[in-house]
């Protein structure tokens, strides 16, 4: 794989997948709060969403680091 191809793929992943998670979790969080169900279940849902957001942020950071590393590589074939 060429360096630029990999960089494009990583940048696209960063822009689409990582950004999308926060959109979905915003909707799910709102969805869960409106339900008239056991507050414990709502809390569980929200805990999972908060966890997903944290994980997403970590993944995003890893992706940014990876992009930086690939950029710093001198070779074109990766």
């Amino acid at each position, binding site marked *: 794989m060429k360096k630029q191809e990999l960089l494009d793929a990583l940048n696209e992943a960063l822009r*689409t*997948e990582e*950004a*999308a998670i926060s*959109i*979905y979790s*915003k*909707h799910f*969080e*709102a*969805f869960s*709060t*409106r*339900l*008239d*169900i056991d507050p414990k279940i709502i*809390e569980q849902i*929200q*805990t999972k969403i*908060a*966890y997903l957001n*944290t994980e997403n942020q*970590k993944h995003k950071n*890893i992706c940014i680091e990876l992009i930086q590393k690939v950029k710093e590589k001198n070779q074109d074939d990766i």
Partner: protein
Amino acid sequence: MDKRKIQSSSFKILIICGIFAALIYLILRTILYFGGDHPIKEMILGLILLFCEIFVVIQGIGYLMELFSVSKIKNVQIPEEVRKSVLENPPAVTILIPSYKEPIEVIETTILACYNMNYPNKQIVLLDDTRYDLFENSNEAEEYKKNLQTICIRDKINLFRRKWRGAKAGIINDYLAHMRGESPPEMEFERYDEKGSSLQTKYIAIFDADQNPMPDFLDELVVKMEADPQIAFIQTPQYYTNFLNNKVAYTASMQQIIFFEYICEGKGAKESMFCCGTNVLFKTEALNDIKGFEEDSVTEDAATSVNLHEKGWKTAYDNKVSAFGDGPETLESYFNQQYRWALGNLGLFLTLIRKFFKNPKALSPAKWWEYALSTSHYLIGFVFIVFLLLPVIYLTFKIPGYFASVYIYALIFIPYFAIILGTFIWTLKKRNYPAKGLFLAQWLMMASFPVYIKATFNAFLGKKGKFITTPKGKNINKNFSFKMLWPQILFSGVAIWGLVWGISRIYFEQRTVGSYIANAFWCLYYALIILILFYFIDPKLSYKTPNFPPNDDQKKTDSTLQKEE
């Protein structure tokens, strides 16, 4: 959503009881009206009240019948070979995002959500319907245009523009024409998606610019469409999620729930579902068969559905929330949205009446019934005014419109009202929606009566109205003006006037106290309903996103991940 929850025999019995209670109430009310000998002015008032009650009871029966249809829904098994065929050779889908001067960040989010859909054979087209000729600042117009283009290039989304006409329906029809190889005037089609080889696709999905579909939106819908070639479209629910910090959006979202949970599911069961304009998958052939969307209505979606039903196409509803969006955030934008829906639906109601007398066989009786129920719903504005004024007239001038003693009234009204209200609350509670929200939704709708009355007049006068999108983001006008609420303030004053008269009559006259109490109660009730609008003037709600600590399982996963890193 567990449909079995409302499929028990006891539920069906409850619905049947509700329908009987409503019919008995109606019969007794009619007997009471015609049974007595009253002066002409009382007869006229009584007749107006009776008509209004008939309207409300019919709407109530309609709702119960939708519930009954839902209780009979059986899961349809889709043949495995259909699934396999879609998996191996997915038919092409064009995703259309019509947009009229929507904030860039709103469009970006929607494009991103569409881009992330799992479905492999799709192409996305942004239909830019913005009136650049109406921008006050030409630099601003150019900048907006350029921003849209930049997003489309970056996300590999096709961009379609043409000479403005016909609003949302117009631009979709122009794109359909473009798909057929025609060129609408001043058409610009910028193709940035290199994957989609052909413009002609079997299906078209439509999303408003503020709707975010989930990644699996198309997967099951395409399978369902492929399983039944007679289906013209499958509608899915609209679900507002911008309500955490906003009272108006919260209440509007509860109104959506009432409609999309049972009413639409019931309509879907009878193949009478009408299109709601967004979050919908169309068969291109069906749209071409009726020459595209109806452009003469501000609710082009419902009008188009009538044309499809007339041509013998089936329509369906899939009660799975697969797209989320934003609802109105201020009273002003809520009223604008309601006005547009009311005007469009009442206009369609009148068209349907004419159509019915011309050709009663154009639609099946079930479809006539469904359309009549839905499109006439917005007459509720007039009904509200009558219900408010009658007790005031009685308490002020002692002119009755309800010809019965308070005891007979209680005997026939309370059982009917209790069953209908109980069923309504109970069924929605079954699907985990809070009663408080449902009441707020109903009250806000009733307090919007001037909007519906204005729409009724304009619909009868044949005014078409303008298609105005609900403002979002920076476009929201946050300056509230009390002028907007003058009819509500006036009529709440009238109701309070009636209440004061009622209390003074109870105190001074000490005769027929029961009927004074009942009428004063209704004055108080309607005054409170109108005054609830003041709750929405400042629509902000305080909600803080909770920051929960991860549980034990998650901590373990966390540490494992860190080790791996």
